[in-house]
């Protein structure tokens, strides 16, 4: 990990084994050598490492990365650790490939380590009988290093007595004899996984790694995450395979995976430990690979063949429907039906031409079907964050897919080479689809030529970055330096207010953010937001993959594509005004509990006056009658004074229901009301997320029938859809629940009005 800051400081030029390279100040020699020598998968950094990994803070304890350093012609007497030493202008670095004293030193260190290392043959044989597994040849980094340097049998004799192997853990065996104290497991456990279990015990030659208070691993607070094991360069931490359940059929052996291009650079130990996490599946034409709404937390990689991806749920939303042709208000036949937007136009949705799904393609609203071929990976979000499948995938031809588990996908995205591959794949195949799905680019799509130009413009300018659960992407008040498009995951947008954090909104896949801070140079925006400064804090809610466009590139984009600029300006103005309105409202009445319960912003809460209410439940019945027999309100809830706020959607300030919708079909209107778009696939994620239980899942007939083999008759096809209070209107313009109350106890009112009613805020003076 380099501590490169690169902010403003001029780049530093140096030579490594005669090769010139220029890197940002603060880069380490090792990273500079990577820059100079590693251009593609398979290239090798001339500097060997043992204790260092790119994703770890360097500790420089093994010293095998030792290099000879001269600065401005003056050779340093001692050798420097390349993983930790930062570059300097005019530095001349010589590695073991060009310097004898470096080669001698590195070979000597390797020989020292080997001298106390268990005899590889004997150890392997012993472990084969003991544990039924071995690490496998060619994957021990110390042995590999010895081979690379031509270090053979060590001339030093072995120092220590054979120590016992700690087999107390269910999944990992600890062999202190093979431990070289590289500190990788320690950093893996403490810094990477934050489990804080592994440390060192003792001092000097007797130092060992230890768990907690030097307890046996199995008795310690270890959670067996396996990160230490996959970080271990030798055979000191090995997986105890035999205790794991048998790998499923179709499991691709670790040897084969190690040779598979997709897994380039992934540690063999990791693949061994995760055996069974990659399964090869064959599908016949027409087979269903996965179904929308299902929870099965894996991703797929297409090796061969083509698949079709589509949303099978009808694109309709829930609409109330009075009995057909009825004229008699007392004989209402109430029903809920599903309506498409052709029949029932909803505002703001007409712009939507494409729907983002958990795949490198987008679906057209009017024809939600796409195909994917070899090399595509889909289901990443389902895999990384356990979201329901966003679409149904069916084999279009006979095809072969690799089904990949979460651990494996995670490591692919972390490995240098595998990530580079994934990123390139995104740039070449998925970028244009992704842009089509992004709302702000929607207008561009109508001009196909210009859209193509846009994609070509952005292709070399996008970087893929990953943010972990809970990490801040940027903070309110930070200087704005980039624009982001969400590829997978959810992002929370919030502002710091007196009294706490205020959530403005949540963004999911296909959404973008960060443009406002970059548009300060545009007159229309300048007056609404401070230029160059982030107006809100964005935080990853789960595993988030972002596409990053640097500030200068973004501004260039606006300059070169006036229609995009126009689209962005309109969008930014809408957002800023909306935020301002919300904040004004919050500032007016900041009310702790009332606010926290989401009531203040509630547009129309059902309030029951308990002094009048006889608990007759007519309101609930009326709601059920109006909505296909299923009530959307429950006569329970919070009490304020003599009022009961019944459970129904409150249009909360913090609309958590929006997080996790795999197809982005639940969203907020400008009025803060929550609506569910008609491409809801009925997965139930929003209902699960609503803290007040106010979103319900209901099956609705789709109008289609299928023949049921068991019942031997046709049955209607039902579709689950999420529903929330739709503020149905009765004859007198009131919702049916209010209309039905025989005691004048049910009222619909705004949250803020309720607050005044119960006297927690003063009534504002009437406006003259």
């Amino acid at each position, binding site marked *: 990990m380099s501590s490169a800051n690169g902010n403003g400081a001029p780049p530093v030029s140096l030579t490594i084994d005669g090769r010139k390279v220029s890197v940002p100040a603060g880069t380490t020699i090792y990273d500079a050598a990577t820059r100079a020598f590693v251009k593609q998968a398979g290239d090798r950094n001339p500097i060997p490492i043992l204790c260092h990994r790119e994703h770890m803070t360097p500790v420089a*304890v093994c010293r095998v990365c030792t290099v000879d350093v001269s600065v401005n012609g003056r050779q340093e007497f001692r050798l420097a650790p390349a993983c930790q030493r930062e570059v300097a202008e005019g530095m001349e670095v010589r590695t073991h490939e060009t310097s004898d004293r470096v080669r001698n030193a590195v070979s000597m260190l390797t020989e*020292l380590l080997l001298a106390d290392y268990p005899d590889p043959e004997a150890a392997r044989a012993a472990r084969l009988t003991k544990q039924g597994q071995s690490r496998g040849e060619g994957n021990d980094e110390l042995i590999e290093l010895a081979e690379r340097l031509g270090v053979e049998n060590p001339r030093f004799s072995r120092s220590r007595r054979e120590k016992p192997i700690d087999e107390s853990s269910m999944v990992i065996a600890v062999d202190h004899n093979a431990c070289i104290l590289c500190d990788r497991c320690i950093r893996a456990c403490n810094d990477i996984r934050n489990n804080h279990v592994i440390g060192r*015990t003792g*001092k000097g*030659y*007797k130092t060992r790694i*230890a*768990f*907690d*208070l030097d307890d046996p691993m199995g008795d310690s607070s270890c959670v067996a995450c396996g990160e230490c094991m996959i970080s271990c360069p030798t055979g000191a931490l090995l997986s105890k395979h035999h205790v794991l359940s048998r790998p499923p059929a179709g499991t691709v052996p670790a040897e084969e995976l190690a040779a598979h291009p997709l897994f380039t650079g992934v540690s063999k130990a990791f693949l061994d430990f995760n055996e069974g996490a990659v399964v090869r599946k064959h599908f016949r034409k027409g087979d269903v690979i996965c179904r929308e709404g299902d929870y099965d937390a894996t991703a797929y990689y297409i090796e061969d063949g083509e698949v079709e991806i589509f949303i099978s749920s009808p694109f309709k939303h829930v609409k109330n429907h009075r009995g057909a042709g009825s004229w008699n208000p007392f004989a209402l036949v109430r029903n809920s039906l599903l309506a498409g937007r052709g029949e029932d136009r909803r505002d703001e949705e007409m712009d939507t031409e494409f729907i983002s799904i958990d795949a490198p393609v987008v679906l057209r609203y009017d024809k939600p079907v796409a195909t994917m071929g070899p090399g595509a990976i889909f289901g990443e979000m389902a895999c990384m964050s356990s979201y329901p499948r966003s679409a149904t995938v069916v084999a279009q031809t006979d095809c072969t897919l690799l089904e990949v588990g979460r651990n494996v996908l995670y490591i692919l995205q972390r490995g240098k080479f595998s990530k580079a591959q994934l990123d390139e794949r995104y740039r070449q195949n998925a970028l244009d689809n992704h842009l089509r799905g992004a709302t702000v680019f929607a207008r561009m799509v109508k001009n196909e030529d210009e859209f193509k130009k846009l994609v070509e413009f952005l292709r070399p300018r996008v970087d893929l970055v990953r943010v972990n659960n809970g990490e801040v992407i940027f903070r309110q008040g930070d200087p704005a330096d980039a624009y982001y498009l969400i590829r997978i995951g959810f992002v929370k947008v919030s502002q710091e207010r007196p009294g706490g954090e205020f959530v403005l909104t949540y963004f999911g896949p296909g959404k973008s953010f960060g443009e406002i801070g970059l548009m300060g140079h545009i007159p229309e925006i300048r007056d609404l937001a401070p230029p160059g400064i982030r107006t809100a804090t964005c935080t990853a809610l789960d595993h988030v993959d972002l596409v990053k466009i640097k500030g200068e590139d973004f501004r260039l984009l606006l300059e070169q594509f006036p229609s995009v600029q126009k689209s962005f300006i309109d969008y930014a103005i809408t957002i800023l005004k909306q935020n301002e309105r919300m904040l004004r409202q919050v500032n007016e009445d900041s009310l702790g509990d009332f606010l926290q319960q989401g009531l203040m912003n509630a547009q129309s809460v059902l309030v029951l006056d308990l002094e009048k209410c006889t608990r007759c439940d007519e309101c609930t019945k009326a709601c059920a009658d109006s909505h296909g027999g299923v009530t959307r309100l429950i006569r329970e809830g919070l009490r304020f004074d003599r009022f009961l706020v019944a459970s129904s959607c409150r249009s909360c300030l913090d609309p958590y229901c929006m997080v996790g919708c795999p197809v982005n079909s639940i969203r907020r209107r400008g009025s803060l009301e929550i609506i569910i778009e008609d491409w809801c696939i009925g997965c139930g994620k929003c209902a699960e997320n609503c803290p007040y239980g106010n979103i319900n899942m209901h099956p609705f007939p789709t109008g289609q029938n299928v023949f049921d083999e068991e019942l031997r008759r046709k049955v209607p096809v039902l579709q689950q859809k999420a529903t929330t209070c739709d503020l149905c209107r009765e004859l007198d313009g009131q919702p049916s629940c209010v209309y039905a109350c025989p005691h004048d106890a049910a009222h619909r009112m705004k949250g803020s009005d309720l607050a005044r009613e119960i006297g927690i805020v003063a009534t504002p003076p009437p406006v003259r």
Partner: protein
Amino acid sequence: MLVQELNALQKRFGYLPADELKELSRRLGVPLHRLHEVASFFPHFKLKKGADVEVLVCRDVSCCLRGAEPLRQGLKALANEIDPTGKSVHVDGVSCLGQCDHAPAVLINDQVYYGLTEPQLRSRIHSAVARDPLPHQRADRSPQGWKIDPYGGTPRYEAVQKLVATRDPASGALLGIDALLESLKESTLRGMGGARFPTHIKWAAVRSQQSDTKYVVCNGDESEPGTFKDRELLRRAPHLLVEGMVLAGLTAGATKGYIYIRHEYHEEIEAVEEAIRDARSRGACGDDIFGSGLSFPVEVFVSPGGYICGEESALLEAMEDRRAEPRNKPPFPTVKGLFNQPTIINNVETLMWTPAIYLNGGAWYRDQGVNGGQGLWFCSISGDVRDPGVYEVPFGITVRDLVYRRAGGMAGGQRLKAIAPSGPSGGFLPTLIPRNALPKTFVEKYLPEGGAFFDILDLPLDPDVLRGMEGMLGAAFVAVGEQADLVALALNLTEFFRNESCGKCVPCRIGSQKLVEMLRALKAGQLDREHLDLASSLGQTMILTSICGLGQVAPNPLLSLVKYFPDDVDAYLDRRGGPPVREFSAFETMV
């Protein structure tokens, strides 16, 4: 914080019970492995309940030359007599206790005893077993008329007064700082811990750092075998250290000063703490120094122990509640020191010279050197000399002067065989160095035309001269008489480094162990030429690649043995040919 908590637990229970550590972990919110890492690193902390009486005999060079090994065997026999199960009395070795001039030194239940006979020690052990209070061995604290003390033993803090008097009332700046730094520069004062870094550059470097928080740390972790001059200085003139700390603090604009002292120096800790209280009451440190409105508090930090803590960055790690493992440098402490803030770290003696230099001028100090040397230094001399002790001598003093005039000559009429001018870390020099073993520039300067040998008695003890002959001058001077076995001594010194290695980097952790094994094999007549050469090239790798000074100097005893004492080595070499005997390699428990 953590170190102090562990100290308190150990004091209460005699060791660190696991349940108490778990409770501590919950209370402080510190993971268990962090507590264990620290507790298992410092030998001072015990993780298991030990014997009732713990007797530790120094096992390092000066004590060994004065019969520590037979003494240890004798006390072990006593322990076995008292209780054969070992539960009552446990006798073991310990690294240098800094009492080399009163060798041998022994710790009985944390009380330091030195210069006692075996019968005297036996009676102490019997009292300890009977749970009678153990007497303190009080050392003399009277001033010695040293030139370093401009006040003759009565603290007056005139240097601090002189500096704060230069305060510009308008800007609040101390206008005298430049003059102070100039006098340090003129004096040629360099780091007295052995690294010899110019003091004025270090102070100016920290002064120029932009930071709200800066520290001054005094390195009083004197632990190198043969070195004990700081012990005398701390005890006899602690006021000079406090004054030097304040001068450094005001110069650098530092916020706080810590005096880090090894925990075995009970009396010295007491003396320094008294001096700090006294200075505070006189207004020379703490708040509002001499009415200037400037403050600089100073306090003592008691080291949890270990030679490695004398490595400045390891010392900082220990102060930050971690294992005392040296940091990779750069960055240096002047930029990122204690808690990542700019920090002046100076040896005790370095800081103590600064008041006199500031008061008397840089030239006063510089011009006291002889034979081309500059300035004065305190030399700890021990080993086979008649009067071991601490002497204030000029740089450039010849070995002849030091050994035969100051230290009263060799003990028992022995002839001088070798010197170790920097304790173990510099290795040995023979009395006659052959011309071809010396660098050309040195030969040209110091050897007469046609002279085949350089007589070590003529060697001016000056850091630059020593460096010119690829050696080093530290604060420890050990004289070795003709009866000593140099192979055994080299093994002893190498064992010291192996025992004190922190274990962080590979070259030092494994290298020092392999060197010990090979020297042990040599001593047993089981090492051939080929493997001796291997040991030498291992030594070169350790010098080039170790993180800190410990690993970089650990091969010096062996390398100097091979270079200067071929006859001693030859007497032991295995000439049988064939494969080397492998028995020597069995790993023996250390301690």
